[in-house]
């Protein structure tokens, strides 16, 4: 590091969030073994905010706090803030959502392939399901293909379009009363029961294998999913995928994923770590992160940067991803998140899988999901 000759940065690479979080938790419990900087992912930031805010440097109490706050979308800053105003980390990327679709498969099935036209055609999720039915009924669609990869795809995207997702304002889980869950469940369970999905379990082996095997024509895609799709398809399949706005996005946008960097206050190099986190999450760096790796900024300044707004993705048929995700990110509301979002989401998506694979009645499956949720929260 030229500007900081005394600082050496050692970086650990983590493949998966879940085991990382487990070790972070045991280290927080033991009060030792924490790194100078710890990544905090959306799946557990709420737990850290609610239960471990004291273990991290409060960026809200820094001298330049106002300046820092202005660097981020208010919902991004808010998700890392505790009720008494402590801010446990600064945002890296965000996960604004769009709908990725297979141009070639749409064409074969006789559907329009223009991304703007599709955005109009599925301006609501009900219309998206209509398009799905048209696809499934098409005699010319590619054999053995489904319209969407999984009911989870529909559920996980649309649940965040409600006023609430899994929690009330205070972060307490209320899946039974949430409008987001209710409407998302309605769309996703319809799709599952009608057989409009390939019924794959997301991130499972078969799901991964399904990408290059052309098993489905659409998938709800947060910005970070694009890199994933690219690596599964291989560079030589450029131009078969395209990106359109998410159904219902004219009303409400959705965010899935994203991370923060936090500085444990017990660290040995707190000041240097704070400097590094501020630098890493500054708008200029977020612009580079997007144009190089496709992680969408959590900073409006970065999202409005010409390099981001004008970014097109050649692999995705030249889709203006900077513009599409930028619109989505700007429209995201601050949906309250809670410590059990990951488990609750899993409870609902597995219940949806059950509808599609075993023909369970949607109402019964909903009951199962609620039971699994209660077990996860663990009264």
């Amino acid at each position, binding site marked *: 590091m030229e500007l900081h000759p005394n600082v050496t940065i050692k970086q650990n690479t983590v493949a*998966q969030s*879940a085991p990382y979080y*487990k070790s972070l*938790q*045991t280290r*927080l*419990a033991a009060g030792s073994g924490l790194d100078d900087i710890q990544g905090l992912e959306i799946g557990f930031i709420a*737990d850290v905010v609610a*239960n*471990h805010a004291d273990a991290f440097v409060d960026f809200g109490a820094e001298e330049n706090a106002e300046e820092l706050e202005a660097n981020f979308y208010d919902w991004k800053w808010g998700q890392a803030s505790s009720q008494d105003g402590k801010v446990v980390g600064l945002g890296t990327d965000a996960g604004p959502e769009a709908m990725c679709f297979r141009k070639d498969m749409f064409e074969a099935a006789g559907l329009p392939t223009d991304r703007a036209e599709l955005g109009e055609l599925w301006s609501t999720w009900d219309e998206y399901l209509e398009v799905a039915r048209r696809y499934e009924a098409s005699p010319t669609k590619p054999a053995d293909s489904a319209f969407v990869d999984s009911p989870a795809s529909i559920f996980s995207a649309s649940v965040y379009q409600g006023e609430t997702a899994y929690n009330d304002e205070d972060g307490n889980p209320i899946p039974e009363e949430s409008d987001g869950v209710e409407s998302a469940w309605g769309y996703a369970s319809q799709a599952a029961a009608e057989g409009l999905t*390939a019924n*794959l*379990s*997301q*991130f*499972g*082996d*078969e*799901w991964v*294998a*399904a990408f290059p*095997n052309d*098993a489905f024509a659409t998938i709800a895609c947060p910005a970070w999913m694009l890199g994933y799709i690219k690596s599964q398809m291989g560079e030589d399949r450029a131009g078969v995928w395209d990106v359109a706005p998410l159904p219902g996005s004219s009303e409400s946008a959705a965010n899935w994923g994203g991370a923060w960097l936090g500085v444990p206050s017990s660290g040995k190099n707190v000041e240097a770590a704070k400097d590094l986190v501020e630098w890493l999450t500054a708008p200029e760096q977020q612009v580079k992160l997007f144009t190089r790796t496709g992680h969408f900024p959590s900073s409006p300044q970065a999202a409005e940067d010409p390099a981001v707004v004008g970014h097109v993705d050649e692999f995705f048929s030249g889709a203006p991803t900077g513009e599409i995700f930028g619109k989505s990110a700007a429209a995201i509301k601050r949906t309250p998140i809670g410590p*059990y979002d990951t*488990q609750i989401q*899993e*409870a609902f998506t*597995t*219940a949806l*899988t*059950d509808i599609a*694979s*075993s023909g*369970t009645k949607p109402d019964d499956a909903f009951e*199962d999901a609620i*039971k*699994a949720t209660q*077990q*996860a*929260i*663990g009264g």
Partner: protein
Amino acid sequence: MTIASQSPAEALVAAPLRPAAPPPPPRRRRRLSQNRWGYAYVAPFFLVFGAFSLYPFLYTAWVSLHRTSLSDIDGGTFVGLENYRNLLQSEFFWNAARNTLTIGVLATVPQLCMALGLAHLLNYKLRGRTFFRTVMLMPYATSIAAATLVFAQLFGRDYGLINTALEAVGLERIDWESGTWSSQFAIAVIVTWRWTGYNALIYLAAMQSIPGELYEAAEIDGASRWKQFLHVTIPSLRPTIVFTIVVSTIGAVQLFGEPLLFAGNGTTSGGSSGQYQTLGLLMYQQGWSNFHIGQAATTAWAMFMIILLVVGLNAVVGRLRARADR
């Protein structure tokens, strides 16, 4: 244990010679000091055992009496036996217990029968016997994770080799993972594949210690090979069979890696309706997916009790059989 100790004979001879001597230090203390090297030699084992088995064992019991989370293990609230009551009332627990039982039966019974048959065959004078015996142990030397990942792909719904083969012979594809019996069958296959050779080798070793005269006598009496197997081999193997049943039962109750990895996406619910969630997987889900360490500790202790119960039953049945035979 006899290092540096006086032999009893020496002690007896020495004592009457000096009747007026002061009373010797209490026997126990002398033993302790005289055997100190023996204790020193076994100490490392007990230290390690204490640190990594006994302490966690007792600590788990203590944690199971608390409502506590992974990130705050020592900060939980004491709730007495509430976790145990909740566990017994939880349908997830009974579902997991049922699955553990059915997968256990599906995996253990055919496994031990096949192992017995294989051992019997390998006991004949075959060309390349050593080769077969080595090959048989190979699955046991494979890691559970590697084996399960391969099997999960074989049993894949859309791109699995087994379904492709089924289709090739005109049968229907099976969604192995989503069905109750199909998923449990698939997991039982993985377990059977891995452990059959191991048990066969144990049986084989026991078979080789059966005296040949027994077979000769049976042959003179006109017993066929099958009759010999039934009336000579099996009765002679009874202690070994009991041993393998106990070990397999313990393994079956603890079944965890296979169902976890069979899901293929890291979820711990054991399938979309928990159709192959075992007790081990439930414990992992409670502790490491839902972070309720108290609940997980409770499940761990419940598993321990179940193992004790099953092994105890086994012993009782074995004893009754032995008495009946006498």
